[in-house]
């Protein structure tokens, strides 16, 4: 097993707020890792640092051999390896579903229209939205929009995908359809790192779970750690959260 993402002792502050206090973990190829923790524990920040949406103050991050902490890192290269899906979908509202997916294929990967369309239809089928290709984002439900966002990211064939609380903005009945897509991706061998509040999902699907507390990795384990937390903090978090 080779590590696709290596995070080594990273620190990050926003002003006087020390958000990450020496976080380390690795994500191996084909692994699905779920990061859980209370809000403010730094889990989303850690995820955003990996795609360099935030820069770290200290430590190392390596993604597919690319040193993300290097100030001269080729962001273009990094972002072709990393896909990210956000809580708020962030689809382009002026483009149809298909155009949303084709945009980067056409302008970044310089594909022909036909080639891009073929890939777009492929990933749309994969997330079960083949029939929505011509719809605009506002015509879709939140769950459908999030599945399009996953498809858009997937179309760029990243080596690792990051999910930042992708179901947090959804009604419970829409959460399931998004989680199902993510589960399929994991089953296909996609390397995934997700920040989530869906404990049952994390327990069932994730290879490993990382519990973050106050800017540190507090506990790491497989699904069973949620049944038998070793630290009082995780126990308290699970009791309050569920």
């Amino acid at each position, binding site marked *: 097993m080779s590590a696709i993402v290596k995070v080594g002792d990273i620190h990050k502050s926003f002003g006087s707020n020390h958000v990450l206090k020496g976080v380390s973990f690795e994500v191996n190829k084909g692994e699905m890792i779920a990061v859980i923790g209370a809000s403010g524990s730094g889990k989303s920040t850690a995820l955003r640092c990996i795609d360099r949406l935030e820069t770290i103050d200290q430590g190392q991050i390596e993604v597919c051999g690319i040193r993300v902490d290097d100030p001269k890192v080729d962001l273009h290269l990094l972002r072709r390896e990393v896909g990210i899906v956000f809580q708020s979908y962030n689809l382009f509202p002026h483009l149809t579903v298909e155009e949303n997916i084709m945009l*980067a294929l056409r302008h970044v990967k310089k594909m022909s229209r036909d080639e891009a369309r073929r890939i777009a239809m492929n990933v749309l089928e994969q997330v079960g939205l083949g029939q929505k290709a011509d719809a605009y984002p506002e015509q879709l439900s939140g769950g459908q929009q999030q599945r399009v966002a996953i498809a858009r990211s997937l179309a760029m064939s990243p080596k690792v995908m990051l999910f930042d609380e992708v179901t947090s903005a959804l009604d419970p009945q829409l959460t399931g359809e998004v989680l199902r897509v993510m589960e399929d991706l994991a089953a296909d061998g996609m390397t995934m790192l997700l920040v989530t509040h869906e404990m049952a999902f994390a327990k069932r699907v994730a290879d490993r779970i990382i519990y973050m507390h106050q800017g540190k990795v507090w506990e790491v384990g497989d699904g069973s750690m949620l049944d038998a937390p070793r630290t009082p903090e995780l126990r308290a978090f699970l009791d309050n959260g569920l």
Partner: protein
Amino acid sequence: MSGGFTSSHLVYLVQSIGWTLVLSALAFVLGGIGGFAVMLARISPRAWLARVALVYIEAIQGIPLLILLFIVYFGLSVYGYQVPALVAAGLALMIYSSAYLGDIWRGCIEAMPKPQWEASECLSLTRWQTLRLVIIPQAMRLALPPTVGFLVQLIKMTSLASVIGFIELTRAGQIINNSIFQPFLIFGLVGAFYFVLCYPLSRWSQSMENKLNVSNR
């Protein structure tokens, strides 16, 4: 002895509307190009460039258009560049509207949600691609009403070109008035012509704004 207002006077006035429109179009198109450049500079990640654009905007917005006209028309002629009045007026109006349009458009670009930039960035789109393919198409909806609103201002401001001798609607009115001296009638007519040009645009701008407000509710 002054005669009465004749149909040939009216024809002369109506024809001069053409020059008002030519000057307005020239100022708007050139100012649009300049304004786009000013907007790009203003949102540039290069701090010095953004600073230069800010100074430009603030300087121009603090100077009356009439003075800009004098600077361009009389200033250039001192150095031996005797430019035609149309060119001088077009240039002054371009400098003027670049600053205003640049500022209006910067505001519209900056009003676009930051996550749209972030999502584009994460798809490896370059900054320019993001602007061109994602941000500007969305910002245009927001920019259209104030841009048309500014065009209305611009049409009215072309009347200032009359002071450097460019014969547009206002100057034509002055010329007729100098010969028949019926200021109330003539300038009333001139005003009515401006109104006819501007009012539909104002209404259009307003209705677009109302639509925007509804869809943003």
